[in-house]
């Protein structure tokens, strides 16, 4: 697997507190990698270390094939777009003037500003200063700055913060389309499971600074346990016969088996004079898995 980001034992300690602990992150090139974790798990600190804004206490980070050091930070970041925490916006300047700062620093053509503004649909803002922008508009401006110059790698820290539902959907679609349309790799952090589920194809789950799970999203879904729940004309007897447990709602819960076993089970119940009233297949969702992996609430 060709990785655009690879960390090896990346650690950051503030005083006695280990914020990021021996993190081995592997972001495949061309993927949308969802970096998932509760608030305070160490996502932002990790992303700042990848950009060279925070110096690791131990371990290394390799970004786009280059080991990040304080000396080569600028060379590496020339190919990286980022939006970390809140967007950087000069409130007294217009959106165009704000992007002019990034354009100038990146040495891009003037047309890149129009392109970036159109991508995040801020091309109509004209002479309006950013101080008059809503939180969502500022977030879009931050995204536009990150997208300028079509970077090979995008680091987006909770990019949908402050957006309205339509805006959230729009940005999610944009992020999802980036690898195919612009050929870039995206590392996007969030504490929202549903968001990562909708945007990413790879996921890393971080808790208390440690990576608790990492891999393709499909593999995470495949880890989910499956079972059957049924209601019968006599649930107590059915549970006894099937050696099954009962849920709080009174359902009889049995481990999922192949179709043949399920058929035998229902016929067996029928032979005992117990009619199957309802039979439903259930499985753990991503939130249950997240809860099990991190030991926290699903979305904090």
């Amino acid at each position, binding site marked *: 697997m060709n990785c655009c980001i690879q960390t090896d034992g990346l650690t950051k300690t503030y005083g006695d507190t280990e914020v990021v602990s021996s993190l081995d992150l592997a972001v495949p090139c061309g993927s949308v990698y969802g970096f998932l974790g509760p608030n305070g798990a160490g996502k932002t600190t990790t992303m700042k270390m990848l950009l060279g804004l925070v*110096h690791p206490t131990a371990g290394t980070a390799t970004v786009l094939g280059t080991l990040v050091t304080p000396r080569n930070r*600028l060379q590496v*970041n020339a190919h990286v777009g980022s939006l970390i925490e809140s967007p950087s*916006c000069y409130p007294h300047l217009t959106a165009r*003037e704000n992007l002019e*700062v990034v354009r*100038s620093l*990146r040495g891009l053509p003037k047309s890149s500003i129009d392109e970036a503004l159109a991508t995040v649909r801020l091309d109509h803002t004209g002479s309006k200063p950013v101080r008059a922008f809503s939180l969502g508009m500022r977030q879009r401006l931050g995204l536009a700055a990150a997208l300028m110059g079509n970077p090979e790698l995008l680091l987006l820290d909770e990019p949908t913060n402050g957006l309205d539902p339509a805006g959230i959907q729009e940005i999610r679609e944009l992020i999802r389309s980036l690898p195919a349309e612009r050929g870039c790799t995206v590392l996007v952090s969030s504490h929202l499971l549903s968001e990562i589920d909708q945007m990413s194809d790879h996921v890393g789950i971080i808790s208390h600074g440690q990576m608790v799970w990492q891999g393709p999203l499909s593999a995470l879904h495949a880890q989910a346990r499956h079972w059957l729940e049924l209601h019968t004309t006599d649930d107590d007897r059915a549970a006894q016969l099937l050696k099954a447990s009962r849920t709080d709602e009174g359902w009889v819960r049995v481990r999922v088996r192949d179709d043949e076993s399920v058929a035998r089970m229902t016929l067996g119940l029928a032979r005992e004079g117990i009619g199957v009233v309802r039979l439903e297949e259930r499985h753990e969702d991503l939130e249950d898995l997240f809860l099990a992996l991190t030991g926290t609430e699903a979305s904090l």
Partner: protein
Amino acid sequence: MRSLALEFAKLRRKHVLLIVLALVAAVLAWLFADAHGEGRGGATGWHSLFFAAPIMNSVFLSLLSTVVASRVADVDHEANAWKQLLCLQGTGSLLGAKLVCAMLVVALAVALELVGIIVIGRMWEFVDLPTVGSWASLALSQLVASLCAVSIIGAIALLWENQFVAVASGLTLSLAGLFSSFLPTALQRLVPSGYYTLLTTMQVVWGNGSSAPVFHEIALPLLDYALVAAFSAAACAYAYKKFSRREA
């Protein structure tokens, strides 16, 4: 140059030029009153203006240096822009551009002030227009003294996001500049804004039984230039060291 142009672009709509004009106008108004006291065609009119300008500058130019240095740093604090800038720009280039930007604004103020002094002197028909060397010496002394103020206040403004600290320090510097002229030279050298008058080559002697001041020019005070350069370099080096170690 690109970094410097960016600093000026970021100051757009921050009314820096207005502040420059207001403070230069305040200095010139004072100098105009001073010239009025000399009377039309006064023999020591130019000397008097050359002596009074640095005294006024120790208050007003140190205040302008404070405001400009604070603005230049605060514009990025306010925008929460350090993360973005430090991803794309070297710390030395960023801080250097800020220092040069602030100094160019102060240089504009000094240039306007010198033009104003010429106009005032001409209006009052003072005789014996000073030589180009004298004008250059006055400009240099005020710029170097401002460099010290900009470096110190700039360092404070960079390291403390709350600009109250920088502005309060600048106001203290400005007040100290006003009173530093009354201190012995050794003590005056400890006050950064005291260098506006220490570096000037126009000196005055009071006394000899006469109430009229006697002006005379001295050679460039090289020791004081060296001291103020050392103060400025120390402030810049401290700001660079602290800032480059700070994590965004």
